[in-house]
């Protein structure tokens, strides 16, 4: 230990700023918000008008800048108040003791959005840690949702059995869906990205088929709408239905999943096998790990969690599925990829990343309704952040970070070349 100990201990600041994952993530967040701001500035008519008047009066430039900042500021402020808390309302409630449900609604919405997102992202993260890229989480969540609604609406029993049964059905549905890419990868070498990507669309077609077919479709309906889950099978709101806050007991499910994932990845022998296989498949084999088994089991867990997320999503919000359930790029399964990457595939990191992305999404809704800036800006900001997180060297170059090492930060899966 002598040769290391003789080096002078770096200062706290240096050690902090060279703790690369956090630094790169923070700078990526900043870059994402800057890009969002640029998009607001270049597309909002009022701002563009102000810039058009740049040379028409002596205060053209200050005015244009002022309008730009106001618009961007308003947008981001509304995002904040819409997803976390409105300071005015908060003080009002604190002083008068009234209006708490209203004040807490943004936070409740963010948590409602984040709950299934955490679960599915952890599934994606576990697969990533095993060196597997599960793009199919969305489809697995769809199947989970369908299974959950099917068990929740077509069987009738007391809550104590019904709710767990619905959740387990979701897990089983997701697992079934995850088994396919896992088994194909392990035994035929089919690239999991292609299989999961394709299977997403199979599940959408299956969803449309289900919500339009007799046993599953809401009786008496001709639209793409499923039956509604029994009250005994849903996740009830945490503060009762009267509060109007949607945040449900699902947060406890998510918390259990986080604990499970933390245990799995950091404490269990199986998780150790996962991480070893993901980091170095060759050494994994040499150390006696059965790669096929690891691939299949990792995909089962990943798919199972995605399925659970699907059923949690349904059971805590709509209680039924329709033809647009999780469809397209807005589906949580796709957001989960970005959340997992942002959280560096670690359970705790994923919780923070999911809360952030949920806040962006929920805040975006508020931004749209109050300032008219469309909520999809949130999606753009999210993707930009992840693009930078996936390219640490670029972030390092943009901010001229010398002390930050990007070794080991680059995320890489392999393409389908041999």
């Amino acid at each position, binding site marked *: 230990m002598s040769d290391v100990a003789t080096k002078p201990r770096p200062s706290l600041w240096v050690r902090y700023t060279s703790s690369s994952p956090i630094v790169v993530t923070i700078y990526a967040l900043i870059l994402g918000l800057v890009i969002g701001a640029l*998009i607001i500035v270049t*597309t*909002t*008519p009022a701002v563009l008008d102000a810039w058009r008047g740049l040379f028409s009066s002596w205060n053209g430039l200050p005015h244009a800048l002022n309008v730009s900042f106001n618009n961007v500021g308003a947008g981001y402020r509304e995002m904040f108040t819409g997803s976390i808390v409105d300071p005015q309302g908060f003080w009002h409630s604190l002083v008068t003791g009234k209006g708490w449900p209203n004040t807490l609604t943004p936070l409740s919405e963010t948590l409602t959005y984040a709950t299934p997102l955490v679960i599915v992202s952890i599934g994606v993260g576990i697969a990533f840690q095993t060196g597997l*890229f599960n*793009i199919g989480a969305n489809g697995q969540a769809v199947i989970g949702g369908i299974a959950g609604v099917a068990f929740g609406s077509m069987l009738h029993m007391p809550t104590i059995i019904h709710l767990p049964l619905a959740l387990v059905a979701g897990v089983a549905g997701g697992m079934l869906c995850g088994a*396919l890419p896992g088994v*194909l990868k392990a035994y*035929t*070498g*089919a*690239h999991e*990205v*292609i*299989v999961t*990507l*394709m*299977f*997403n*669309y*199979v599940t*959408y*077609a*299956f969803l*449309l*088929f289900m919500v*339009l*077919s007799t046993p599953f479709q809401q009786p008496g309906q001709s639209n793409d709408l499923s039956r509604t889950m029994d009250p005994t099978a849903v996740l009830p709101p945490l503060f009762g239905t009267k509060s109007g806050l949607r945040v449900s007991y699902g947060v406890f499910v998510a918390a259990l999943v986080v604990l499970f994932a933390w245990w799995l990845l950091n404490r269990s022998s199986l998780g150790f096998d996962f991480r070893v296989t993901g980091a170095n498949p060759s050494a994994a084999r040499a150390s006696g790990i059965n790669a096929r088994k690891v691939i299949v089991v990792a995909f089962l867990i990943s798919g199972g969690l995605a399925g659970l997320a699907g059923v949690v999503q349904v059971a805590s919000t709509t209680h039924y599925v329709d033809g647009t359930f999780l469809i*397209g*790029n*807005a589906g949580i399964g*796709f*957001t989960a*990829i*970005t959340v997992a*990457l942002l959280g560096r595939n670690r359970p705790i990191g994923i919780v923070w990343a999911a809360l952030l992305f949920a806040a962006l999404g929920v805040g975006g809704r508020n931004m*749209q309704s109050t300032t008219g800036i*469309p909520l*999809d*800006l*949130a*999606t*753009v900001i*999210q*993707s*930009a952040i*992840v*693009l930078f997180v*996936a*390219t640490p060297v*670029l972030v390092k170059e943009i901010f001229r970070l010398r002390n930050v090492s990007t070794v080991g930060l*680059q*995320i*890489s*899966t*392999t*393409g*389908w*070349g*041999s």
Partner: protein
Amino acid sequence: MSLLDKPTESIAPPLVNSRRTRVIAVLMALVGLFTLFVFGLGSGAKTHSSLTFDPINVVSAPIKLGSLSMSVRWTDVVLGLIIIALATEVFVRQPRRGVMARFGGVATLFLIALLSWAARSPGPSITSSVNITSILVGSSATVMVLVFGALSGVMCERSGVVNIAIEGQFIGGAFLGSMIASTTNNFFYAAIGGLFVGGLIGLVLAFFSLRYRSDQIIVGVVLVTMLGGLSSYLTLQVLTPFPNFNTGDIAPNLAIPGLSRIPILGPVFFNQSGFFYVMMILVGVVSFALFKTRYGLHVRAVGEHPRAAASVGINVIRVRYINVVLGGAIAGLGGVAFMAAQGQFQVGYTSGYGYIALAALIFGRWRPSGAVVACIIFGLSVYLSYDLQTYQVPVSGYLLAMFPYLITIAVVAGLIGRVRPPAADGQPYQRD
């Protein structure tokens, strides 16, 4: 030991291949039996179906073909028997090549059987009919868009870069194309805009994956998400307040004099929008460029074995940049073509066509010609999955919509034939 001089590696693979070929043969036989018993013998002896061939807008069809009435029972029995015969042939002979082609043939025969069954009338009097020409014309727009996407994939992946962002390039092209077409009323300018925006997205993909060696799949997925969000954002921010930017024209058909009057083929191939003709030319150009020219040899070498290419002085990174940008431009053009066939831009209306194009590329073994065949099969099944709802089919069209994806999964798993991607596909290249 004489083993020393003799490569023994050839012991295992043929066994595996023969097992796989048998699996395909069994699958084909099942399809044949289904056709034979359900469609064929399952129909009453007198059920007839009627196929018509004249385009609905009859302006350019001087020759009337009338309609063909046939017995569903016997047509489908014959089709089923042909499929079973093909299956038997594959099972017994185990041909080394062409298994996929036979499978494609079986799929087509099955679709014909399905159509004739779907349009059946219980008695000899005709109550409904299937218009073959209108099905072909209707699906040709889908096929066209898929071909643009698949060609984009061919360009990128042949040079060793995975382009999952095809869907994003479609969205970008469709969005900008709609804006330009609406304001200038000129689809040529719209096409230029599509080429530009697609190329730009390709450039971003190339920049991140070539310069910074970021994971190509992640960058592609993120770009699709980003373009989806951006198009939705801009729709609300720009297109909704200024509807003039999105007036939703459909590109006019340019009938080729004479040729467009040929029955069936005329409306399908020679009475289409300019984009369709560009697509047909592009297939030829890309095939020619990749397989006949010096440029194409360099591209393929870079996609298969970049170090070997570099060892003879080829600039690997430059070739990849060029191809990813060109490929992106082609997909962007595909987006404009999609817009020109569907009308005004709507959020999310490319609904995964980019991924079907990717599937077609894989099914077509990374070849333009193969990809075209795959696009036709996939495009038809996507179109029919909607169109079948107008006929009296008890099977949901959504099950048919799964077909392209399921078959692609079967292909990559090696259950049907064997596909081999370019060896360096998706792998970052670093000069040593």
